[in-house]
């Protein structure tokens, strides 16, 4: 089952398209990271997935074909929006109770356990908590709903490094406990590497990269070699992005294992951060799944 | 040239002359509150337009009345009827009732929509952390804002008050004793008192905003306080004010009137007599009573015995005592009320500024 499936999804605000021709299919049971520069359309995509916005073009479905925002979808999908919007004038316990009253699925014990573990004062108003504490309350509520699919919009942005670590640990604990699928957008590339199974890179309203992290890392290498010989890397190594020095060039290339790099070149594995940055710097490049050639020179008919 | 040296050539504002600073602060005030100022301005313009149009029509009727000699209301002769009938039971009277309810509204709206959110919004959204950390101190900013906006509010209030007074002139003239300028309704509809009222409402709103630091509660408090104060003024404070330094003397002509209302045991006259009675035309008559030889009010029981007997009553006319204010004192009272309200507004504004200085962010 695909936990989220979009077909040529697009959303326009006025004249500008925030998201266009977005086609994705993320399998269930994964932790999916959605990355991209500011204004790339990440929040738009997540809002569309939650039924907060309706598409201008295309469609989006969740949890194996449920229309986004439908009653069935909302029952099983939990969302923590950007900046953890909660009712600031309510104390923590009333906020939790309010969420309980608005949902059919609710595990009060889980909520209590988490709040106790977080040592959050129950009677303090949400508005008086720190950013990290507010994010944790929002996550507590989302997890207490016992969702099958958890969607988070830039949850780590307002958090300090320790708080980020704790937040991600809580998410991963829920993943381990329940086997839920997670989709979250973030700028924190180093943390993503530790937790993400599936990666989607969004740039300029379009999907640039979509694939399993293991696959992506296995099919990309960072190469260092003479600047003059960059052209000679193909067709086995498809250059994604190159940085030229005076004599040396640093290249991030996509290849099909087990091809080996030419003699003058040194290859090493890439980190997720390097991979994402390389693609973001080359808007024309893409790495998408589906019936598509894996590099121009490998001949047609090679599909994944 | 290093970056720091470059900074030395940058614009320096501080030692500039005060008017230039004020102009800059004026722009800041305008730009920051533009939407509210436009909104409140539009509303006030609507009310003013209504008063202007009605006033023009009323004055037309009033001039026609003068031309046709219909001024004394008892002259309900044929040609006067169409001119005077709006004033007996027609649209002129309904205009007066609408104005009665409408006149305090712009002042309250100024307090609620301009005054209350002025500082409350900054506190609520946290932009004080920007505004209070600029080179212009928070005191100077707040004082400039309050002064500029306060003056604008006073001006607007004065215009509304003048319009109210001007438009009601024909109504007062042609409806005998129904609408006189001493009554609470019209007493507030003058440039002086309307301006002062608007200024006070504005200051109250600002203070409420600083105290509560959240917009909607500040608005709620301002509504309650300004409406409550207006109510108090209309009913208690106004009559208390007019009772200060009253004169007392005999007024036989009034004593013979049958159009005297009674409140309790004393004869209570909150009315104004236009017909040059007793040489006190235009005076505000507060209370009147029939007095015995000892100058003390006759009891109700005593009065009852004589009421149906015109001759005995005639003897008593000479002892009908009234407490009254001379007509010349009208503007004294106007200034007193206006001045007190402006003073109170300044006090509230100063309190607001003091609180702004004291508070953290």
């Amino acid at each position, binding site marked *: 089952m695909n936990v989220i499936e979009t077909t040529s999804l697009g959303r326009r605000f006025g004249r500008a398209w925030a998201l266009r021709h977005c086609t994705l299919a993320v399998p269930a049971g994964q932790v999916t990271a959605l990355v991209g520069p500011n204004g790339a359309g990440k929040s738009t995509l997540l809002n569309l997935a*939650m*039924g*907060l*916005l*309706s598409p201008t073009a295309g469609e989006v479905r969740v949890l194996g074909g449920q229309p986004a925002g439908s009653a069935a979808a*909302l*029952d099983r*999908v*939990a*969302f923590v*929006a*950007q*900046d953890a*919007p909660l*009712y600031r004038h*309510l104390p923590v316990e*009333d906020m939790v109770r*309010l*969420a309980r*009253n*608005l*949902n*059919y*699925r*609710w595990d009060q014990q889980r909520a209590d356990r988490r709040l106790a573990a977080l040592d959050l004062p129950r009677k303090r108003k949400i508005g008086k908590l720190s950013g990290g504490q507010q994010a944790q309350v*929002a996550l507590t509520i989302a997890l207490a709903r*016992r969702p*099958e699919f958890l969607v988070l919009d830039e949850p780590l942005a307002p958090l300090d490094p320790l708080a980020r670590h704790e937040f991600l640990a809580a998410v991963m604990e829920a993943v381990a406990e*329940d*086997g839920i699928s997670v989709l979250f957008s973030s700028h924190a590339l180093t943390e993503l590497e530790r937790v993400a199974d599936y990666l989607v890179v969004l740039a300029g309203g379009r999907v640039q990269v979509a694939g399993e992290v293991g696959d992506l890392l296995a099919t990309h290498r960072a190469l260092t070699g003479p600047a003059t010989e960059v052209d000679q890397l193909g067709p086995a190594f498809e250059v994604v992005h190159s940085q030229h020095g005076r004599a040396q060039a640093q290249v991030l290339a996509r290849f099909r294992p087990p091809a080996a790099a030419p003699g003058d070149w040194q290859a090493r594995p890439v980190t997720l951060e390097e991979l994402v940055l390389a693609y973001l710097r080359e808007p024309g490049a893409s790495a998408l799944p589906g019936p598509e050639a894996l590099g121009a020179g490998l001949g047609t008919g090679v599909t994944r | 040239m290093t970056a720091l040296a470059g900074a030395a050539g940058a614009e320096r504002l501080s030692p500039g002359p005060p008017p230039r600073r004020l102009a800059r602060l004026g722009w800041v005030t305008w730009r920051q509150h533009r939407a*509210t100022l436009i909104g409140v301005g539009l*509303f006030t313009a609507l009310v003013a337009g209504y008063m202007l149009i009605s006033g023009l029509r009323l004055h037309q009727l009033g001039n026609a009345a003068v031309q046709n000699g219909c001024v004394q209301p008892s002259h309900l002769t044929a040609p006067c*009827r*169409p001119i005077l*009938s709006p004033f*007996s*039971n*027609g649209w002129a009277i*309904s205009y007066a*009732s*609408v104005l009665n*309810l*409408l006149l305090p*509204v712009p002042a309250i709206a100024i307090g609620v*929509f301009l005054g209350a*959110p002025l500082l409350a919004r900054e506190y609520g959204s946290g932009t004080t952390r920007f505004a209070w950390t600029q080179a212009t101190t928070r005191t100077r900013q707040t004082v400039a804002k309050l002064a500029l906006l306060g003056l604008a509010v006073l001006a607007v209030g004065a215009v509304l008050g003048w319009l109210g007074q001007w438009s009601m002139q024909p109504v007062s003239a042609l409806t005998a004793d129904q609408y006189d300028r001493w009554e609470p309704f019209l007493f507030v509809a003058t440039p002086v008192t309307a301006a002062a009222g608007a200024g006070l409402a504005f200051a109250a709103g600002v203070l409420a905003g600083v105290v509560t630091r959240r917009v*909607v509660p500040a*608005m709620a408090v301002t*509504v*309650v306080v300004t*409406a409550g104060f207006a*109510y108090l003024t209309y*009913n208690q404070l106004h009559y208390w004010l007019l009772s200060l330094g009253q004169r007392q003397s005999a007024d036989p002509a009034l004593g013979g009137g049958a159009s005297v*209302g*009674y*409140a309790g045991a004393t004869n*209570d006259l909150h009315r104004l007599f236009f017909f040059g009675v007793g040489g006190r035309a235009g005076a505000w008559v507060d209370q009147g009573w029939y007095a015995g030889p000892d100058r003390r009010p006759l009891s109700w029981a005593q009065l*009852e015995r004589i*009421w*149906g007997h015109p001759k005995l009553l005639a003897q008593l006319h000479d002892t009908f005592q009234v407490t009254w204010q001379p007509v010349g004192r009208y503007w004294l009272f106007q200034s007193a009320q206006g001045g007190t309200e402006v003073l109170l507004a300044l006090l509230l504004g100063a309190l607001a500024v003091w609180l702004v200085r004291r508070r953290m962010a």
Partner: protein
Amino acid sequence: MTALAEVRAGGWRRPPGLTDLGRLAWVTWRQHRAALIGLGLFAAALAVYMLQAGLRVHNLWDAGVRDGCVRPVRWTNECRPILSPFDVGWPQDYVSQVSLWLPLFPIAAGMFLGAPLLAREYRAGTTRFAWTQGTDRTRLVATKIVLLGLAVLAAGAVLGVLVQWSVQPILALSSEHLDRWIPGLFEYTPVLEAAAAGLAFAFAVLAGVLVRHVVPAMAVTAVATIAGSIVSYQQLYAWMTGLGLHHSADPALGVDPAGAMSGNVFVLHTTAGSWVPGPAGAWLDQGWYTDAAGHRVSAKVAQNLPFHSVRQLTQMHDTFQVTWQPGSRYWLFQFGQGGTELLLALILGALAVWLVRRRMA
């Protein structure tokens, strides 16, 4: 069974049912508690004011009944001190005072309960929480609007009852133009006060959804409610009471038609009673003189006809015709206006819910 399988199988799920309404009611109360309490306090203050005034008025009335001054009304010397406060001073003033305060309730209900209801959620971004919970947003918003709307209707009805009760004796005894039909008092009944409050509330909610900012939504609501009541007071009322008028001759009234003249027609707008001859309890709309042939006389002629006796008029072959509403239609108009306002409120509320559904986050 893994946790996920358990979740998929429907574990942790409570069945939807009647308790849903209780849960949503709790959500509504807890989220909007402050506004509800504030509005409730305001309504309670109004209620207390009317209650104590009503008790005093009824005491006066009972005293009048005891002393035989009231049924029928006798203006003897003994009765004068009891009856004349109903003409001049308090409680006659009470009627105009309550006219000042009572319209504030619908305005307050709209401004402080209705406008922030959805506007605040949009402004603060908490829609991203509220619209993504297990309860469908349509159901959530509709339930909130209905529950809060019912509370507002109930409070308005209670206030309307208190007004009517407290004002009853004054209407019975006042010789002024006070009766239940006049625009100033027609609106102050349980039906219409509730309907007005409900309409203001619904409009405010819609304004909040459209404007999406709290203070502007409050301002729009205030202006619309005030403008709406002015229009309703002056124009709509005249239009409504002009529907389906009866027509008959009323020679006795021709002696002195107490109304403003507009052309050759007298605008009466008063209830037939002991001082105004006409069909019993009828609301008199307009009147005019007709000549022997049954045509309306011209304005010039009509100006000269009043103050002749009935016999003189008959001799001149002039009769006085009136158009009027039967007194029994009072409740028809009450429910007609109230029903229309409620219908409009429902439409506006439904429009608000529909706009929420439209998925603009």
